[in-house]
């Protein structure tokens, strides 16, 4: 038991990362005044990246950071453990959470009934806290608890959408999300029965002795299926398009850029850190299964996206396809492939964030996101649609954008494995993105505005600036990939090295 020596603020950062948004949420629920709650929420979400970045810097310079809750040493107490992988993820989640907040004020005011706005911010912070808690924890069961915090708040956020279909979407997600979480719990239960511990590091040490038992393999299967439900890997993605389409713009942008990423991270944690890459990809047929499903997602979901009339829905299908690229990186199971997957995780968050924020601006001015009403919108809202074009080009993977960087790494890894056909397929699937993004660009810029669109004016600055920040990041990290790819490469190395040194 340690007590009385943790006096510096820097030591307390891991706990603050999650406890602050929780406190903010509780305060919002207590106060229930929308402007005060927006202010609290903004304050909290701006503090998050500061904490996350300083944690990542600590990790990059001094190795993994461990924080023992209640002063109980792991595995008896719950441990927060930050290494390069989840440090990077924390930065991603908290930055997205912060960028969206200034945007939220105008968008939420337009889309959510007045007396529900305060608690909307409460739910937003709970979701943020839940996702951060899942990412930062070093304890299998604690990850489940925070998964449920984030999921429950996400169901509510989705149900706040203005269309009644949002309710059905939230219900569907609740059912599938709970099945996914329960699968995860079953997997953890089997692992717990075989190793006697819940702490990731401890588990990784003790699993070696029982690695060949069927229970441990069944646990892997359950955790994989559970997480794939959460991360919406094709064909377990059915909840995602409805949920993204129905949710309010702010919620869609936040969920799309963060929620599935955290599920990917947990999967990585189990595959590489606990089971070990050699066992998962060497002894079991994980690579072919993931490879086939990823490719199916890339092609099937992109094809479906082409035929959507609602742009929000189109982008939701595109998300399913993009998740395919990330899991493809995992399936390649080489340092370069994994780097590509992790970089794409970050880059996809940037571009989808920008795209959904731009759509939120459109929804604010013309009330919906159907492609036929968006005719000519580019002439009325050039800045908004400009950001859309930039992020759309990134999605396609045009050189000089972030999309190119991640696809470059993935293609490189396929060639390294000697799989030329795979590199070809990666390029081919990008052509599908050209079709659906191109369709929106064509209609938005090259048609004459009609109806409500003719009167539409540019979105307010508070919404344009966050949108353009993300769009600009798509270019900046595309031209200079040193920072993101560098950290991602270190994360991939850390994953391959494993938890047990």
């Amino acid at each position, binding site marked *: 038991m340690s007590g009385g020596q943790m006096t510096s603020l820097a030591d307390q950062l891991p706990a603050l990362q999650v406890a602050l948004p929780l406190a903010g949420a509780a305060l919002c629920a207590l106060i229930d005044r929308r402007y005060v709650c927006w202010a609290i929420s903004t304050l909290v979400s701006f503090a998050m990246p500061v904490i996350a970045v300083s944690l990542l810097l600590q990790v990059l310079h001094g190795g993994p950071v461990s924080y023992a809750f209640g002063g109980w040493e792991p595995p008896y107490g719950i441990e927060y453990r930050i290494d390069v992988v989840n440090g990077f993820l924390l930065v991603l989640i908290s930055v997205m959470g912060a960028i969206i907040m200034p945007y939220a004020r105008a968008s939420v005011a337009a889309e959510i009934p007045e007396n529900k706005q305060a608690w909307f911010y409460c739910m937003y912070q709970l979701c943020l806290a839940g996702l951060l808690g899942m990412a930062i924890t070093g304890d299998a069961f604690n990850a489940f608890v925070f998964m*449920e915090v984030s999921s429950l708040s996400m169901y509510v956020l989705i149900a706040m959408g203005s269309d009644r*279909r949002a309710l*059905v979407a939230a219900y569907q997600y*609740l059912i599938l999300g709970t099945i996914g979480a329960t699968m995860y719990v079953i997997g953890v239960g089997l692992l*717990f029965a075989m190793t006697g511990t819940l702490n990731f590091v401890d588990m990784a040490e003790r699993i070696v002795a029982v690695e060949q038992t069927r229970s441990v393999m069944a646990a892997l299967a359950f955790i994989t299926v559970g997480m794939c439900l959460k991360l919406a890997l094709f064909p377990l993605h059915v909840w995602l398009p409805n949920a993204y389409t129905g949710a309010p713009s702010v919620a869609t942008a936040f969920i799309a850029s963060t929620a599935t990423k955290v599920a990917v991270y947990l999967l990585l944690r189990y595959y590489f850190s606990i089971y070990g890459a050699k066992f998962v990809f060497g002894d079991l047929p994980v690579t072919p299964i993931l490879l086939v499903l990823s490719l199916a997602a890339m092609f099937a979901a992109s094809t479906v996206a082409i035929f959507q009339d*609602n742009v929000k829905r189109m982008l939701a299908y595109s998300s399913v396809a993009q998740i395919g690229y990330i899991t493809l990186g995992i399936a390649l199971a080489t340092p370069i492939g994994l780097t590509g997957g992790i970089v794409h995780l970050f880059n996809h968050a940037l571009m989808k964030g920008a795209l959904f924020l731009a759509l939120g601006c459109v929804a604010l001015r013309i009330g919906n996101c159907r492609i036929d009403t968006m005719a000519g919108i580019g002439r009325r809202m050039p800045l908004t649609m400009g950001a859309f074009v930039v992020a759309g080009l990134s999605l396609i993977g045009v050189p000089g954008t972030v999309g190119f960087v991640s696809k470059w790494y993935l293609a490189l890894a396929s060639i390294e494995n000697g799989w030329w056909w795979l590199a070809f397929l990666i390029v081919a699937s990008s052509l599908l993105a050209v079709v659906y993004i191109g369709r929106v660009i064509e209609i938005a810029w090259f048609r004459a505005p009609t109806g409500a669109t003719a009167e539409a004016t540019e979105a307010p600055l508070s919404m344009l600036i966050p949108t353009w920040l993300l769009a600009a990041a798509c270019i900046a990290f595309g031209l200079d990939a040193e920072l993101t790819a560098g950290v991602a490469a270190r994360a991939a190395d850390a994953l391959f090295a494993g938890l047990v040194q």
Partner: protein
Amino acid sequence: MSEYLSEVVDHYNQWITIFLMVAGLYVVVARGNMVKKLVGLSIFQTSVYLLYISPGKILGGTPPILADDFAVYSNPLPHVLILTAIVVGVATLALGLGLVVRINEAYGTVEEDEIFDKGGSE
């Protein structure tokens, strides 16, 4: 034969657990009524409790409340985890029912098929 029988006895509680799990999951996936789906979901979640608690039982042990009269106690850790899981389960159920009530108001039905007929999802 008796070896086979002891195998059955050893795993009886696990198999019942699995049966409960599968039945719960079946109700969730197969049924269209949204309330019934939630009942199935909670059966599915509840069955997991046994998966955790049974391996923690020690024959001849007592509940993990320390006293001088006993020496062998069952494992307390799974109990703690399942307490949390129960709470999470009922929270999910409450939220699900709240959604069902709203869906019923919006569509006038809680049957998934009928909702899809009314354009529940595009």
